[in-house]
């Protein structure tokens, strides 16, 4: 059922856009139409990005019901702010993912402890289109640069940055997760960020 829906939608989207448009360009065009209050564009955008966004939200919020509620908030906000996207031109996914992550972090304030995941990500229903989308939303050059620079960090720095960024852990939670003093965790994070910046900006 999901496959039929997404295939139909993919066909519909491609009928509206140039054949060679990248996923990032598609998202940008759809955002432009959202700014014009085109509800259909929001629906198409939702079909393109919702799987990826829910993946991000689930990792941080752990519970599907909370993450789906957050996904609603994110899409409503994207709709309301589509006309402000101009400041982010060329970085559609950075913009939308930032909205999602900040919303998740805001919601984390209300749920103190790290809850167990509702469902293991590996067992989660994977949206094939969303998985493809991951590979096409950002330029491979940038992604490769991040991978290269990330791999140069120490294993501890990588682990801390991932727990913070992908799983939404606070520094306290990271310290407890990896059984390391908080001061050490803070220093790993600070140095990891500084090294990443140096490497990516060089």
């Amino acid at each position, binding site marked *: 059922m999901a496959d039929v829906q997404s295939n139909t939608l993919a066909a519909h989207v491609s009928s509206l856009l140039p054949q060679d448009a990248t996923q990032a360009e598609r998202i940008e065009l759809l955002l432009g139409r959202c700014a014009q209050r085109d509800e259909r564009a929001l629906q198409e955008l939702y079909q393109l990005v919702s799987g990826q966004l829910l993946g991000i939200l689930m990792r941080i919020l752990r519970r599907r019901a909370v993450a*789906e509620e957050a996904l609603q908030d994110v899409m409503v906000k994207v709709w309301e702010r589509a006309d402000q996207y101009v400041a982010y031109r060329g970085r559609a996914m950075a913009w939308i993912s930032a909205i999602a992550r900040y919303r998740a972090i805001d919601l984390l304030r209300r749920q103190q402890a790290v809850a167990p995941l509702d469902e293991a990500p590996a067992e*989660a229903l994977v949206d094939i289109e969303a998985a493809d989308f991951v590979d096409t939303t950002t330029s491979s050059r940038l992604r490769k640069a991040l*991978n290269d620079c990330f791999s140069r960090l120490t294993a501890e720095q990588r682990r801390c940055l991932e727990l913070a960024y992908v799983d939404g852990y606070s520094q306290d939670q990271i310290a407890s997760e990896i059984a390391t003093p908080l001061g050490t965790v803070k220093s790993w994070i600070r140095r990891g960020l500084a090294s990443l910046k140096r490497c990516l900006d060089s």
Partner: protein
Amino acid sequence: MNYQRPQLLDELAAQYVLGTLRGPARRRFERYCKHNATALHAVRRWEDRLVDLVTTAVPVAPSALVWDRIKFRIRRDRALRPKRTLAALGNWRVALAAGVAAIAIAVGVWTGFGPRSMQPVATVWDQQMKEMWSIEAPRDRSALRVLAGDDLGLDPARAYELWAMPGEGAAPVSLGLMPQAGRGTMQLNDAQRLALSRSRQLAISLEPWGGSPTGAPTGRVLYVADVAAPG
């Protein structure tokens, strides 16, 4: 926290984007970014640097109800208010749930302000960059709405009086007394509006209970804030 040091600002931006800046410090930095292009730029640079890390999150298909709820919410919002009301609030980064928007509209009507017309006038910070008050006004600036920050630690036996500073040798003009908690409204007369329109800065002085007895500041000036250009 001293946001003036570029390196510290960049570290805060990094920790903000990473998500490890939490609690009041996070909210304070968020508010600071609203008024500071350098901070906002630093945040965007970090968003760019880190965005691809989220690709390690496995995509998850949402249940069908989610889209229905989104559709319902945007249609309800459109029916509730004119186009782009929320964008006009300019409150970047605040994921404003529709329910909150509805409450804001109700409060706005009740106090005589439509949220659509409210614009920031100034934000008052203390020396540690703690946000003390945010001041907004309708487009015609016929009144000011002032929202006090949390736990300001003010002296309840004294008054904190807001002054327009028209400059060029003109005397400060009192606009009203700042609320020590919660929110307050100052209705402005023509003279006050004129003084405000000519002011590039506002000042807050420490006064006896009830405000300055002379019509001019009598105590020391505690805070000075820049006035935003009318939108």
